[in-house]
């Protein structure tokens, strides 16, 4: 070979670097083999769940919410809870089912291929789960995750929502560079033994049906980046109430709620993160806020990619089914070449989208907040240790504030800037590309099948209504395009600036 070792090293140092753009290749080498097994299990489980639970109800729920705005899908949530779906992807150490987090994405794709709205009810709960995890407050994680797991053995689910967005600040809340210019409405005021929250959050998915809400508020409106407070607020807390919920075009199964805080006192033990908690960290508060945002979005935006892949696939599958029973001029539509070309493109789009969200999921596993859990030894230990061992011995340890603080310091100070950039950048690629492909497939499907595609029972139009939201939440696609640039391009282009 005409390549010396020295040359190999040098060439590989050039951009794009293999470990920055071929996440799945890295994943093959780094991740334990059981990940594949968990992915297969999750896919099979989702297919069974679709057959027995989702397909029989999803259209009815969609129409029901349109007819009766106050309807909330409690029955579905109870059933999903009985299936253990709200704790299955919580680590076993913290009382959950311990299925590998990577397998959540293909699970969400499967459910979304039938109904993105119902998949969102499950997926958004894990957005809440990962937000709490992003604070690295293991004491609270142990308390709340165990409550979620206990609830899965009972009648009523314990869900977690994430509340960031405010009436006057949407995009601004998703990006540290913009946050400093945001018109913040929700403030946290320090008081004896805790914090007092005042303000309003809007568009909070699962709000009305969640038990816990991860609420982001700010100590100083003019300096939010350095004064962010993340509070765990339980439904029923004094000073906290639900406002209206939104009349959405799609994803109607998943309620989008207004949360109102009026002198709502949150005791210190329910504060997931506040500036003082990071006083011992070497990193400055701005960088810690950036890390927390990266931790959450690297995981959640790949999830939106999975929802979108499901929507793209659902539209394709519905179009194919209709093309197999629609006659045009005596021919079956599926046998006309223009239809075949469209179907081929749609099939391609689904697979392109899947490849992208999996790349992002790999990047998150290798460089996101849980990267340490993928070390083979830790992984093996976590799998083989019986659950009671964790409950009896580890749980009391985790609840000690001192240990919690040490873990947190290690999590933030040990987290490399580049890891955050790669995980966040790939999550953005997956988020905007998959959602754009979903819209493209839905429109192609509607074009292909004609009037039948306009009907709810045609199985196409709902995917379009559902998919549009995927271009908006978790940061609009415009923001995500710019975040890609900020994280993956600009660091190598000193002349470039984003958000100016």
């Amino acid at each position, binding site marked *: 070979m005409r390549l010396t070792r020295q040359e190999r090293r040098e060439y590989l140092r050039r951009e794009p670097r293999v470990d920055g753009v071929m996440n799945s290749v890295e994943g093959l080498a780094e991740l334990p083999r059981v990940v594949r097994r968990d992915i297969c299990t999750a896919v099979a489980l989702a297919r069974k769940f679709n057959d027995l639970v989702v397909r029989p109800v999803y259209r009815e729920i969609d129409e029901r919410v*349109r007819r009766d705005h106050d309807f909330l899908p409690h029955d579905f949530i109870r059933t999903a809870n009985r299936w253990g779906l709200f704790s299955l992807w919580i680590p076993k150490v913290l009382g959950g089912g311990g299925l590998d987090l990577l397998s959540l994405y293909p699970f969400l794709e499967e459910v979304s291929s039938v109904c993105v709205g119902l998949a969102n009810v499950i997926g958004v709960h894990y957005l809440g789960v990962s937000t709490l995890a992003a604070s690295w407050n293991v004491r609270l994680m142990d308390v709340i995750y165990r409550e979620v797991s206990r609830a899965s053995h009972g009648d009523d689910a314990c869900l977690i929502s994430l509340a960031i967005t405010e009436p006057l600040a949407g995009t*601004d809340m998703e990006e540290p560079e913009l946050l400093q210019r945001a018109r913040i409405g929700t403030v946290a005021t320090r008081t004896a033994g805790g914090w007092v929250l005042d303000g309003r959050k809007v568009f909070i998915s699962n709000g009305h049906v969640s038990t816990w809400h991860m609420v982001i508020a700010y100590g100083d409106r003019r300096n939010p980046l350095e004064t962010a407070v993340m509070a765990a607020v339980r439904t029923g807390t004094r000073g906290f109430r639900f406002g209206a919920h939104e009349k959405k075009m799609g994803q109607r199964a998943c309620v989008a709620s207004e949360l109102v805080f009026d002198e709502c006192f949150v005791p210190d033990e329910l504060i997931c993160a506040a500036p003082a908690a990071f006083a011992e960290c070497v990193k400055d508060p701005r960088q810690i806020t950036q890390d927390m945002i990266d931790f959450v979005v690297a995981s959640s935006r790949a999830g939106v990619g999975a929802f979108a892949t499901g929507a793209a696939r659902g539209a394709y599958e519905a179009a194919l089914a209709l093309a197999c029973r629609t006659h*045009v001029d005596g021919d079956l539509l599926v*046998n006309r070449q223009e239809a075949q070309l469209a179907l081929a493109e749609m099939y391609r789009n689904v697979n392109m989208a899947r490849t992208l969200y999996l790349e992002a999921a790999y990047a998150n596993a290798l460089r996101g907040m849980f990267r340490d859990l993928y070390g083979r030894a830790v992984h093996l230990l976590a799998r083989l240790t019986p659950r009671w061992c964790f409950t009896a011995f580890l749980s009391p340890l985790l609840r000690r504030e001192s240990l919690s603080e040490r873990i947190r310091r290690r999590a933030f100070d040990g987290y490399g800037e580049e890891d955050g950039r790669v995980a966040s950048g790939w999550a953005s690629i997956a988020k905007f590309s998959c959602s754009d492909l979903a819209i493209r497939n839905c429109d192609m499907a509607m*074009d292909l*099948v*004609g009037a039948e595609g306009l009907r709810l029972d045609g199985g196409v139009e709902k995917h379009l209504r559902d998919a549009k939201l995927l271009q*908006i939440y978790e940061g609009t696609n415009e923001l995500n395009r710019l975040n890609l640039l900020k994280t993956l391009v600009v660091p190598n282009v000193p002349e470039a600036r984003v958000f100016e």
Partner: protein
Amino acid sequence: MTLGPSEYEALRELGASFARRELSNDRETHDRHPITPLWDGVLRRASELGFFAMTLGERHGGSGAGTTALVPLCEEISRVDASLAGAIFANAAAIEVVNVAAESSDCTPALESISTAGALPLAFAACSSPVESVLPSERPAGPTVAITGSARNVFLGGVARYAVIAVGGDAGRSYVFVDLHAPGVHASQPVPCIGFRACPMVDLSFDGAVAFSIGAAGGGLELFRRMAERLAPAAAAISLGIMKGCFDEAHAYAQERRQGGRRILDWPAVAAMLGEMSVDILLGETCLLAAAQGGAETDASALAVRLGEWACRATTDGVQVLGGYGYMSDYGQEKRMRDARMARQLLGMPALRRQDWFGRRWGPSLQPTGSRKGACG
């Protein structure tokens, strides 16, 4: 009939003032049909102003203004709420099938019934061509036919007194005129569908229902084609109106909403979406005016296909400019996004319309690709 510029503008103003008065305040309520009652009052007042009789000859109580008159009217109405334009369009398409047939055959019974229908528009499957549908079958019974089977996706089928329906028989596809109150006719509940919700679509089923033939037996495809040619400018106008309404709302919102310390209009990402929309609107407007006033109806078929596509893109972006608020029914954008998909399907599958136009513009109609009768066959 060609309209002069002043008549054209007068119709535009009529449409705009009607939309302001009757449609803008209750858009969200109307869109909730069938949960909310159908907008009978709006239909009645639209009828009183002659919106359903513009293409009907004066001899039968219409204004005889012709299909061009629908262009400014539908455009302005769609700017506010395209559902009513859908109703005007479906009714006009039904009438036009009869008008075309009447040029070569006796359609007196149908035309007389239409002139006695009062305020009610006619029902018609405005989003499908007969070529792409499974049709109820017909059996000749003297001057009338007996029809059996079902007709899907018929606009206003649960509201209208009469419908123009495509049927299949030994001679091929034909059109018939049906009294929807006659024995053997049943209309389903409104079919939940993506848009035009105040212009509800139903499935009709027929069990030996008696209907009048319109035109020659087997002449249905030709009738549809000629009707579609005349109605294409109106279909294009509906898409254009939706785009204009979408731009109006997005532009106004982008001037008010602030993110990142400035108006979102000042972020190039938002300005680019609005810029793209306004370019498409300008092109559409220019071409449509030329097609409508110059009588280039054939080219309007191509324009309707293209504007249908642009309206889908523009309204998807129109929601995006409003962010999360755009996704909610309190604003008009999500409805426009849904209505644009209906408008895109007016007169049938876009791919077929494209092929059909190409065939007429450049040569004989294309053989269906599934057929083996190619030149080299």
